[in-house]
């Protein structure tokens, strides 16, 4: 009896010891990743006087002034809407074009598929800085300079290889016989894609779409180069232009970065559940 109790207590202790280590590691990793965000959060609610003083790390007085200024007295809201528009359209274009392309690469009889996939991947290997000046000239001569179309299109093109790769591997996971069945049942290849493959590849579409959206939302250099006015600037560019000639408004920048981060963070958290659920439950078995 007592022996069993002794064993039990030792077991509990062992559990704590092993879990304790894991928890410590997790806490460290979490702090490492979230530390900067926390710092931003603290900065964003500090008063201007506290901003330039240390200590205190945790301020005694908190203020919403930075948020107020960022949301009501700056072009941030406008640029958030621009960002949403650009990211949404870039995602739509990348998913539609990428989906068609991936389906062809995964299922249709095309010669040289590995070469095509390799070339697709190669295009994303150019550093953005290398293509930025020709891209600028191109957009200018197309009359698209300082338009949301230019930014959205560039993002879509730049994210396309990613979408193609993700979707191709998703389509390849689906049994080929489903495609054959759809074809024999009377589908054209496009109808087979729409009626059979897209519904089944929903987790893949979610993953690809989310990644493209986040990429476009966060992208800075193209957006900076191709836009020139508050009407077209995306959120990262707008935040970057906060510093004035004589001062850097740390509080405002911190508040703005949190506001900009929030939508994608929420989106990722929301979708992650779907993605994980989709990956496990949506798998197809014959």
């Amino acid at each position, binding site marked *: 009896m007592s022996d069993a109790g002794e064993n039990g207590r030792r077991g509990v202790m062992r559990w704590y010891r092993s879990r304790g280590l894991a928890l410590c590691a997790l806490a460290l990793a979490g702090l490492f990743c979230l530390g900067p965000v926390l710092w931003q959060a603290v900065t964003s609610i500090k008063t201007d006087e506290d901003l330039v003083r240390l200590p205190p790390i945790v301020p005694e007085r908190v203020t919403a002034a930075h948020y107020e200024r960022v949301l009501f007295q700056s072009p941030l809201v406008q640029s958030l809407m621009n960002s949403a528009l650009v990211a949404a359209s870039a995602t739509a274009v990348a998913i539609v074009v990428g989906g068609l392309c991936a389906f062809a690469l995964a299922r249709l009889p095309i010669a040289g598929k590995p070469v095509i996939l390799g070339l697709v991947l190669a295009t994303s290997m150019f550093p953005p800085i290398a293509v930025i000046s020709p891209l600028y000239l191109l957009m200018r001569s197309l009359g698209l300079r300082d338009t949301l179309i230019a930014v959205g299109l560039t993002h879509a093109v730049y994210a396309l290889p990613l979408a193609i790769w993700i979707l191709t591997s998703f389509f390849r996971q689906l049994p080929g016989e489903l495609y054959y069945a759809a074809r024999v*049942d*009377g589908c054209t290849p496009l109808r087979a894609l729409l009626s059979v493959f897209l*519904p089944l590849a929903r987790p893949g579409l979610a993953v690809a779409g989310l990644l493209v959206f986040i990429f476009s939302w966060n992208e800075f250099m193209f957006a900076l180069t191709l836009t020139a006015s508050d009407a077209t600037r995306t959120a990262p560019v707008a935040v970057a232009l906060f510093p004035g000639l004589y001062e850097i408004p740390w509080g405002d920048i911190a508040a703005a970065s949190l506001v900009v981060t929030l939508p994608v963070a929420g989106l990722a958290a929301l979708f992650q559940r779907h993605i994980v659920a989709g990956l496990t439950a949506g798998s197809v078995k014959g």
Partner: protein
Amino acid sequence: MAEVRIEHLSKRFGATTVLPDVTLTVRDGEFFTIVGPSGCGKSTLLQLLAGLDHPTSGRILFDGEDVTGLEPRERDVALVFQSYALYPHMTVRDNLAFPLRVTKRKTGLDRQRIEAEVQRVAGLLGLESLLDRWPRELSGGQRQRVALGRALIRQPRLFLLDEPLSNLDAQLRAVMRAELRHLHDRLGTTMIYVTHDQTEAMTLADRVAVLDRGVVQQIGPPQALYDQPSNLFVAKFVGHPAINILDGELCDGRLRMGELNLPRSATEGGDRLRDGTRVTIGIRPEHVLVTSGASHDVVPDEEEGRISGVVRLLEYTGSQTWGVVEVDQAGKGIMMIGGIPTGDSLRPGQSVSVSITRGPHHLFDIDTGMRLGGD
């Protein structure tokens, strides 16, 4: 309904030739099976018939109409897969209705008609109570039925079945086999059924084509394949337990296989061959009797030859027990399989006598494996 003619069809993938040159005709309304070991090209042939792949050369004709260049949806065929290939995101009802919905614009079927067709097919296959289930909720047999239903609903002119029963357990397979045959007799549609299981091919088909490495070895009714195999491959492939194969030589009017020898007359066409011809002999297990030595079980007239051996393995099938016996042929031990008369009980390791009863036994060219003599 359709007569299917395949003319000099070939298929190559890069450097590998899967089908060198296939020519065969499936008659209208026939239950035709294509049987062969894995990798013999039978599934490729089926895909070519369905239009899912294009032949390297040759033609396919349905009722005289050249369909070689047509898309799958223009051919009006249905295909049932080994893996069933049910659409996992659709209920049974939607799976069944899918072929009709896809072709709605062409056929002009409205929703009521489609639902009526779904009910008809569900009734035919006993799926009425499962219509609102998802494929993942069904058992293997039920999935198979849904796959069949999806093929049936369009009333195609040709059914293609690619090993549709291989994923079922043995008992269910026998039930579905009977159902399939019954279904064929009711519908009268031409069916081409591909399998690697010779029992399935033999029991189902009006005619069977045996395929090996892309080449049609023989086409004929099951009985003909069994009684007159056109070559060694067919002889070995068809029949269970497998045929006994021995090498021998014709001399002095007898067929000598080491210790064992048979009169020439016991073989089909043996009389017409010259002395000294080396041949391969095929003896069906049912023409081999394994007895404990005393010849009380063998009618003397029926016996053509005898050899002694040692029992190595016993195979019980219920009605018949088969004995695998090691016999000596030219200093080399070879295995022969033969029937053990009911009532005899033998043990592995026991010395027995192996009697060859009246055939006909089959003779094949020792080099080419082609059937000798006969017709």
